């Protein structure tokens, strides 16, 4: 089924989208029993008049916020969706051509977002074989390709493993191997990193880059993570179904205003340089990696610093910044929490026995904001489930507001600790948003008005418009569902709020919304907040103290300043420090003579430090 001559194929673009629109209809409410036909109420454009040409061997990122149309674009590329208007041409074949649909799909492979929902086989090798079976290959050829593909993605040591025993990053690499074995010319990654932890994302991105650089495979990577975009050759910014920019990542990052308007954010170093330029410094705008930033800043500081003064003032500057933050002062109250020598083992006595947490102790004050960080599988989630009695430790105890969580009153105490699981939107089940939010207080003897007031209050806290309360939960967008689910926990008025990765899978704007009301709850209502997160940036910015867990043990507790001082140790246990901190640690090491502070986590603090080091307007900030 070869199309055209080889010479013709060489110059042929991989994928061409020509004035492509994709629309869906919202049906009018009609009574179909009366035989009325649903009349389209509104036409929504998921994509509108998109022109895009992807050449062979390119490494293209398509970026945009949730719902911008980027995933629709991906699905058009291998005929999973067909355009409403315009044409999509894959290596000269139109996706509208029914006869060629399998040819297209064998040339353009696709890796999806959810690792669990794309693995068909019951072991790694069987899953990789699945696509090859569909192509009707001989068994010998399959074995050769399976070994080659699994070796390329680095999963060849787990050929017999069952999928559910793998980590998220490993599962995604299995999915990639399954596509790679089919020898496609192009692979589309449809938010394939969105559900992974930072380690998994790194693993996958390394493989993706290798496939492009070493195997010459055309890559279309769909994401909202800007740090991944900087690995690509070309960035296509999408919003409201239209292409806003199509340029190199570097050029894209020099247009921060545009990026922000599209609901995304540039990497911290780029933002640092943007702010420095705004403050009147003559620094380049196109800085996208910490390495570039370091070399520019080193030169700048060497030339300009007012040396003697600054060395003496490191502590003073740090103290000044610390004073600007509201500092938490420990107090006891209904929202205080004590965990003492807690241990828990899964499946004791069975072959799967696993000690999940071991001798963990932590005391959290009333109204404190605690961050909980650790590599996936370190016991964070297990610890969190003890906090409202979902699990009961083998040893040790948990106390809330001074009374122990045990025996008959666990159910009463559970209400004091609101626990928001990862992806909480999956637990919604009632017919309307309001009913679902009210689920947690249905047994309390409240009048209808009181109930309503509580629901509205919770909805307002999470920023959910009151207009949607009577809607079906399925009419909400992803971000709204997440907020409705959190409102369903807040409605119980817990004194302690525990959130497990509340921003997972959300774009930067969605993440900021959620974190904003968490902070607000702590600041204004004095609620104790415990935030489990993989984002060191968020934790450093928001938390009063941080608990670091590793292999079931609590290895460090302290303020962000104390914790992120230990860059090397954190890296060893699979964690990282915020990008700003890395940058300033390197600066401090490179320029020991200038006393650069290593205690910088946010872009704002970074700007302040640089300006003060240059003797410019520090005090005014």
């Amino acid at each position: 089924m070869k199309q055209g001559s080889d010479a013709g194929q060489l110059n042929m673009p991989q994928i061409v989208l020509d004035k492509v629109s994709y629309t869906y209809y919202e049906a009018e409410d009609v009574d179909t029993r009366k035989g009325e036909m649903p009349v389209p109420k509104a036409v929504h454009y998921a994509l509108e008049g998109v022109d895009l040409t992807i050449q062979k061997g390119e490494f293209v990122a398509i970026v945009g916020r949730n719902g911008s149309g980027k995933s629709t674009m991906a699905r058009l590329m291998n005929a999973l969706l067909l355009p409403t208007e315009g044409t999509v041409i894959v290596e000269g074949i139109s996706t509208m051509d029914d006869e060629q649909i399998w040819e297209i799909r064998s040339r353009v492979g696709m890796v999806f977002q959810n690792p669990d929902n794309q693995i068909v086989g019951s072991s790694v090798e069987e899953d990789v074989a699945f696509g090859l079976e569909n192509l009707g290959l001989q068994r010998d050829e399959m074995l050769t390709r399976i070994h080659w593909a699994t070796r390329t993605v680095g999963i060849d040591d787990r050929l017999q493993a069952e999928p559910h025993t793998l980590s998220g990053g490993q599962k995604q690499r299995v999915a990639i191997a399954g596509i790679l074995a089919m020898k496609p010319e192009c692979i589309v990654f449809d938010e394939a990193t969105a559900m992974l932890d930072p380690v998994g994302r790194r693993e996958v991105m390394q493989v993706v880059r290798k496939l492009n650089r070493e195997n010459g495979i055309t890559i279309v990577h769909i994401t909202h993570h800007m740090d991944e975009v900087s690995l690509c050759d070309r960035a296509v910014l999408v919003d409201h179904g239209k292409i806003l920019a199509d340029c190199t990542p570097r050029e894209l990052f020099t247009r921060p205003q545009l990026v922000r308007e599209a609901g995304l954010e540039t990497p911290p170093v780029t933002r640092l340089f943007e702010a420095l330029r705004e403050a009147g410094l003559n620094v380049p705008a196109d800085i996208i990696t910490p390495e570039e930033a370091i070399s520019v800043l080193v030169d700048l500081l060497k030339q300009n610093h007012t040396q003697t003064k600054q060395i003496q003032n490191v502590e003073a500057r740090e103290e000044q910044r610390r004073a600007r933050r509201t500092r938490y002062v420990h107090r006891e109250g209904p929202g205080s929490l004590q965990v003492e020598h807690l241990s828990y083992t899964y499946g004791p006595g069975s072959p799967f026995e696993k000690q999940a947490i071991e001798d963990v102790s932590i005391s959290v004050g009333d109204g404190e904001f605690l961050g909980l960080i650790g590599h996936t599988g370190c016991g964070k989630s297990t610890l969190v489930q003890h906090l409202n009695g979902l699990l009961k430790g083998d040893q040790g105890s948990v106390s809330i507001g001074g009374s122990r969580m045990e025996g008959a009153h666990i159910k009463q105490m559970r209400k004091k600790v609101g626990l928001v699981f990862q992806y909480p939107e999956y637990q919604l089940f009632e017919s309307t948003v309001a009913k679902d939010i009210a689920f947690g207080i249905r047994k309390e003897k409240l009048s209808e008005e009181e109930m309503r007031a509580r629901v509205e209050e919770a909805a307002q806290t999470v920023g959910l418009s009151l207009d949607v309360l009577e809607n079906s939960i399925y009419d909400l967008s992803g971000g709204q569902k997440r907020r409705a689910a959190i409102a369903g926990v807040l409605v119980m008025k817990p004194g302690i709020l525990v959130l497990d990765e509340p921003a997972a899978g959300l774009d930067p704007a969605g993440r900021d919304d959620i974190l904003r009301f968490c902070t607000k709850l702590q600041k204004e209502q004095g609620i104790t907040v415990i935030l489990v997160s993989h984002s060191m940036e968020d934790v450093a910015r928001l938390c009063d103290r941080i608990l670091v867990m590793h292999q079931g043990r609590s290895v460090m507790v302290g303020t962000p300043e104390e914790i992120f001082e230990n860059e090397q140790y954190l890296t060893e246990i699979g964690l990282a420090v915020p990008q700003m901190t890395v940058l300033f640690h390197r600066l401090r090491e490179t320029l020991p003579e200038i006393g650069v502070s290593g205690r910088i986590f946010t872009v704002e603090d970074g700007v302040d430090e640089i300006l003060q080091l240059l003797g410019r307007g520090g005090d005014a900030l």
Partner: protein
Amino acid sequence: MTVSIGQYLPGNSVIHRADPRTKLALTVVYMVLVLLTRSFIGFGLVFLYLAGALIAARIRPKYIWNSMKPVLLIIVFTLVLNLFFYQGETVLYHWRFITIYLESLIFCARMCLRIIFLVVGVSIVTYTTTPVMLTDGIEALLSPLKILHFPVHEVAMMMSIALRFIPTFAEETDRIMKAQTARGSDFDSKHIMERIRSFVPILIPLFISAWRRAEELANAMNARCYRGGEGRSRFRVLRMTKIDGIIFGVTAILAAGVILIRVWGV
């Protein structure tokens, strides 16, 4: 969280290595033979066969006992009922309205032995064959039905996908249960209606999730060029070996023995 599927015990014995088609087909033969057996000499023969299989499969007695546990109640029930209500001629024991005959005792013993032999026999197969292999075996054995347009490949694909997703759904159920417990669901309430109602907040999200997963999986399979059984090759190939020949031979001897004993009425 680790979930074990079925009751497969990992191992590499001759029985483990035998072809699933052999095991499934011979299970059917074995069941017929057990039901044909009447005399205790016959049962002795079946016992020898079974013991041989257990030793060859290297299954520890603990697991045989485990497989018996669920049917214990049925055995006791059959015993009691038949012992007291089966009518015979030779009275062994009589007390007021209870009469136990020799015939009823023999009948009961026969029933119990049959149940035990059936259960242990079937569990040898499930203990030594992975669910995936079982599915393959079933697909192969049912493949003649393709002539009748029975969707053998599709059914087998459905079974293997179902098996693959059991651990995923087990984890998900656990997570949703915990999330709803955190919102005040009470799964061990004393009121039965309350308890039934408490499962709605679990079943609905699970059901929705199953739909979502099904849709995404269908997309992923489509993207990997899946278009049903036609033109599809197979990665897992079933191969008969010498082991299968030996197992067939031994079973043939058993069959001959059981049938001869039955015919001669020993």
